[in-house]
């Protein structure tokens, strides 16, 4: 009998593997979201609202990750907002779902759906449940700052965040700097440094670290461009390589970005290596002097 059982189990596993080899059947992009109405889900959840919210949140994370990495046949983020809406309806205090969800939604294509409007709508739903949560106000300012590049609106939301009971002391100066210098590297650096210091999550801390390295790289590219310009002025031609610049004393040591990847020199143009983890660099906003 045990032999029969083992053989049957092995057959089931073998057939499963055989079927998988034939590829997957096509599935509709929306076929996995059985119930779309948040009100209906809230009722159907009975006493399992929190755990169901977790399930929808995990599905949102998986959808975002799989789509971003191109693991899905349909490269569509269309179900991302409904999943986040369901998760936050079932658990209105699900802070991470609001904050990460807004980041996911605001991310420009192909890395995200590029829907800052939905990101803000999601965060405003959060404010209905938690009207004094400074992090949600900050997150809305964040979407305006990075995605819509509306620095006046960003400064306004940072200002609102600073007036909430548990807001950190750096929130008010951030609002002022954003209003005065929105979009330039100094205000961006300030924003990311504060996020890096106050982050309670590894993802946010790593993202802040990466963004600060991008800003460092942008500064370094500016500096290297000046060096290349000086070389060109002296020799009447663009340098052929970093080695030539080093031989002539214009640069010293390895010319690498903050992640250790070498910068690329093409004529007089300095860029990041296409394999650099810092790509794509953020667009420079409408900085005010």
């Amino acid at each position, binding site marked *: 009998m045990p032999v029969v059982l083992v053989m049957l189990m092995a057959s089931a596993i073998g057939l499963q593997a055989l079927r998988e080899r034939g590829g997957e059947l096509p599935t509709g992009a929306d076929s996995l979201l059985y119930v779309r109405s948040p009100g209906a889900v809230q009722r159907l959840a009975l*006493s*399992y609202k*929190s755990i169901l919210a977790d399930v929808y949140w995990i599905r949102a994370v998986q959808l975002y990750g799989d789509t971003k990495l191109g693991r899905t046949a349909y490269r569509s983020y269309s179900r991302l907002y409904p999943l986040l809406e369901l998760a936050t309806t079932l658990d209105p205090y699900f802070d991470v779902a609001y904050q990460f969800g807004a980041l996911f939604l605001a991310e420009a294509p192909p890395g995200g759906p590029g829907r800052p409007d939905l990101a803000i709508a999601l965060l405003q739903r959060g404010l209905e449940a938690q009207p004094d949560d400074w992090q949600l106000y900050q997150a809305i300012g964040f979407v305006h700052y990075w995605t819509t590049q509306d620095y006046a609106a960003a400064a306004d939301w940072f200002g609102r965040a600073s007036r909430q009971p548990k807001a950190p002391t750096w929130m008010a100066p951030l609002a002022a700097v954003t209003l005065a210098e929105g979009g330039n590297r100094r205000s961006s650096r300030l924003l990311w440094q504060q996020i890096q210091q106050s982050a309670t999550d*590894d993802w946010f801390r790593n993202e802040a670290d990466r963004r600060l390295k991008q800003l460092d790289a942008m500064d370094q590219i500016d500096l290297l461009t000046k060096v290349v310009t000086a070389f060109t002025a002296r020799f009447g031609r663009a340098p052929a390589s970093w080695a030539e610049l080093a031989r002539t004393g214009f640069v010293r040591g390895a010319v690498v970005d903050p992640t250790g990847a070498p910068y690329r020199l093409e004529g007089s143009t300095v860029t990041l290596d296409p394999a650099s983890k810092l790509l794509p660099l953020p667009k420079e906003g409408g900085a005010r002097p």
Partner: protein
Amino acid sequence: MSAIRTVGTVAVSVFRESVRDKVLYNLVAFAVLLMAASYLIGQLTAGQDIKIIKDLGLAAIATFGLMIAVFIGIGLVWKEVERRSIYSLLSKPLSRAEFILGKYCGLGLTLVVNVVVMVVAWYIVLAYMATTVPPEVRAAWPAPATDLGMLRAVGLILVELMLVTAIALFFSTFSSPFLSAGLTLGLWVIGHFNADLKNFEAVVDSRAAAWFAHGLYYVLPNFSAFDIKQQVVYAQAVPASYLATTALYGAVYIALLLAASVAVFSRRDFK
């Protein structure tokens, strides 16, 4: 005093029978579920492991308990009748009321033991998971991983399970197990829709229908009142008066159902 001793004897025998029937095996399933989840959740989600394990633990305690309460509760009386052991039991110095109360207390004891063991396992997993998180991240949590405040939700889950047991026992005094399971689970589901019954006038024009729904709201057991899982996970305030009123409400409803069970069972003719 002798009545209490008799009830206790029946209760202990029910507990022993549930151990013999391997009911406590569900504890192994619970422990495996939590340990597997604690590993997998970290791979699946972004920094919400502790919240999800808290939610999962509370949901699993409620679900495992509900299954035990319903599927053992419905067989408490029926099994004795089906096996015809009821004749020998009732021929002993044991009143029908003592029999019903003993059966109820026995399953109650099984549930308490189950819930206590599940809670201990759950706290051990939470304590372990907390050690894997850096202190600055822990500082940002609304409550510690092993927040004892969560026991308030466990307490109300236990009262809810005792109420479900009373309902299952009540139905088992006069109907078949299949029907009893359906009716008990049906009442449990309806009990979670109570808020809708209360606000029925918002969706119907008929005043009579609204009043009828309003009446049902007060008559049917309000299971949604026992659900404070979300509040305790976020360490939100749940007034002591709310806990006391809800627990008392559960106790009164249980007393009502037990009295009804005794009344129905006392009239049953086993000839």
